[in-house]
């Protein structure tokens, strides 16, 4: 008889199960069959848009209130992304390693669906590094973009979101010299700015956390392009709720970083010194900030104690200086630098108070340390804005200049 034994049956069953269960092929995805999106830009769509109706038919009244966006995606071309450093004069350097596709849609996801309709390979967002939003769109509000980005498991929380002065898609088209892939250059600019103390750490995950908070307003880097190939950090785009409301100048980024206590200093300023009859360029090396909060007659009051560690990096009238650099002069420069910082910090805070944007997170200090006050006066971010407008500020700055570089006077 050829009846299979129990053992043979079990063996057969097991091998069938192994074949079915251990294949693991459902998610196989060849790397060259993916459209790897490195960066996207979001602009307001202009003029008559040609729209393929994929996500919705006809009109949707709620969506119609929001402006249609134009999304440009920078897609890496397989095989043209240089691996490792470029060797000079190699062939094919004329070809761009990326391809930029633009589509329109009411939301990011609709635009993405439209994008997929135009791109053969499956869109992959796992390497998305930068999202550039035009100022125009940022001023209308960014909340409607965050939902898709947070929901999608491919998006990294360590990506960057930036606001561009003018059209955002210029950042997709730019041709930087230092790096062949524009998106990578852009993210390098931002990462290096953190290392150089030029910008606080503000990747998209952090931006989202602040955006969700009811005690702080978000901020993003405000960038511009120079000569089609150069990225310039123009300042800080600050938000009121989810809407961008204003910008600062680059020096104010330094002051802002001082207030929130970012340690590494990267900005400098001229201080005039009567003792040596000239101007000195003083660079901030290290910063430290303490924030003391109190309530004065029910009104929030903040005392900011700043401590700067600075160095003298240039003496502007070095050649015909009548008096050499001396300890006393340095002391007075320290004082003047501190006074200058105090004045400018107050100005900066006043400016953001007028715009009702608490990018420093003073609200968080009050929420954390004065819970009774917070519970009775504040429920939403809007309530805090009301309080914040009338907040009084006191700034005390102390500067130490310890180093003067490699010159004796």
């Amino acid at each position, binding site marked *: 008889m050829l009846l299979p034994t129990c053992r043979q049956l079990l063996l057969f069953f097991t091998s069938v199960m192994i074949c079915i269960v251990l294949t693991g092929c459902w998610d196989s995805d060849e790397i060259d069959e993916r459209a790897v999106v490195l960066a996207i830009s979001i602009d307001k769509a202009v003029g008559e848009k040609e729209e393929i109706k994929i996500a919705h038919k006809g009109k949707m009244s709620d969506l119609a209130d929001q402006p249609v966006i134009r999304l440009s995606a920078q897609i890496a071309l397989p095989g043209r992304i240089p691996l490792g450093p470029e060797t000079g004069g190699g062939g094919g350097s004329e070809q761009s390693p990326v391809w930029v596709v633009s589509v329109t849609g009411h939301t990011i996801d609709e635009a993405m669906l439209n994008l997929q309709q135009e791109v053969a390979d499956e869109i992959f967002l796992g390497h998305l590094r930068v999202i550039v939003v035009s100022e125009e769109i940022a001023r209308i509000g960014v909340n409607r973009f965050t939902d898709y980005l947070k929901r999608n498991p491919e998006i990294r929380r360590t990506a960057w979101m930036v606001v561009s002065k003018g059209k955002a898609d210029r950042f997709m088209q730019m041709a930087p010299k230092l790096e062949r892939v524009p998106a990578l250059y852009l993210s390098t600019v931002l990462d290096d700015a953190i290392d150089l103390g030029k910008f606080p750490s503000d990747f998209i995950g*952090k931006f989202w956390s602040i955006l969700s908070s009811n005690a702080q307003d978000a901020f993003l880097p405000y960038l511009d392009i120079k000569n089609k190939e150069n990225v310039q950090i123009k300042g800080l785009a600050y938000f009121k709720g989810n809407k961008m409301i204003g910008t600062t100048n680059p020096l104010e980024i330094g002051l802002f970083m001082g207030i929130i206590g970012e340690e590494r200093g990267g900005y400098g300023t001229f201080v005039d010194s009567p003792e040596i009859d000239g101007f000195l360029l003083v660079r901030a090396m290290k910063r430290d900030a303490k924030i003391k909060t109190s309530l004065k007659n029910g009104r929030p009051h903040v005392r900011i104690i700043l401590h700067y560690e600075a160095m003298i990096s240039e003496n502007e009238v070095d050649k015909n200086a009548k008096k050499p650099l001396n300890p006393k002069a340095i002391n007075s420069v320290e004082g003047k630098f501190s006074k200058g910082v105090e004045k400018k910090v107050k100005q900066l805070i006043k400016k953001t108070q007028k715009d009702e944007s608490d990018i420093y997170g003073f609200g968080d200090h009050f929420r954390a340390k004065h819970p009774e006050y917070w519970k009775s006066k504040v429920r939403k971010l809007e309530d805090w804005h009301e309080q914040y407008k009338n907040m009084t500020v006191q700034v005390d700055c102390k500067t130490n200049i310890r180093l003067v570089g490699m010159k004796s006077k």
Partner: protein
Amino acid sequence: MDTPKKITDIQTASIVISSIIGVGVLPLPLFAVRAGNTAAPIVTLIGIAISLFALFIITVLGMRHPNKTIFGYSEEILGKWLGRFCNIFVILFFALLTALGSREFGAVVTTAILRETPIEVTVLVMLLLAAITSRNDLNTFAYIHTFYLPVIISPVVIIVVLSLQNANALYLQPLLGNDIGDMFKGSLTIASLCQWSFVLTIIIPLMLNPKRAMRTGMTGLLIAGGILLMLVVASVAVFGAEETKKLLWPTLELARTTTLPGDLLQRMDVVFLTVWVTAVFTTLLSGYTFICHALSGLFRLRDHKIFSFSLLPIIFVLSMLPGNLLQMYKVIEFVGRFGLIVTIGYPCILLAIDLIRNKRGKRSAPTNM
């Protein structure tokens, strides 16, 4: 029992730790923050205290009957049929817990990693793995837990430590603040995540030294609780209470936000998920093994292997019952909190009756052995 008694103290502690750390660590900070806002760490602490109490009760019971599992002594305390009747509920509850755990695992994998793979396949593979492994005896079971323990703990600790570079201490303040009722409800959910330590009830009789069960069990739970607390603190400190409420799996997001210094690894979620799959496996293995041994105890069988495969379809079907993800979490929270009656209430009653009977028993006759 034929299985030799040789489960050591360290093995017992590892069983407790790696059973508790499992699928539940992903939504854990969400549960805590929902209940307590910035008081989430306190909520977690209360939850751990509740589980410590639960573990205390079952260990006292186990040490009073050092040669029997809960299925043995419950029949002795409550009488044969009432005991069996109650034990059916324990088994049903753990079947449900294991099913929901595997379903949650499937949901995470399908959402975050293998998006094309059908959820049924992920769940089935995990259950199959647990079923095959549960055919071993309890000593091997203890070895497996001990073996995987460092793999489970160390990456979690590393991620928590590294994530602190993005932390903001202000997000953790004020320490107290929410409604006490809400907080307690949240603590029950947290305690329900620690219910897997109930597996200790079948381990104690096989311990080399059952007298030390209390110390080792408590140590294990404290270590596991410490890790859970660290995860909650890190999530709240990095994301803030408001953002944590918006995230389905804050722990996973924590791993996604964290980078190894020096750009060695730009996202840690790959490492974390690999580890997490192991953690889920050990947890489900505990549940599955517990059910198998419980059933063999119930039916007075010597061998538990017969149940390992026959249970599979039942647990699989149970795991597929919840419709969508949000519904699944509603069910998990409900079943978890309800299960506290089984894992805390039931042992309490057993202990109370046992103590009363023992006092009387001393006076009358030493019938109970």
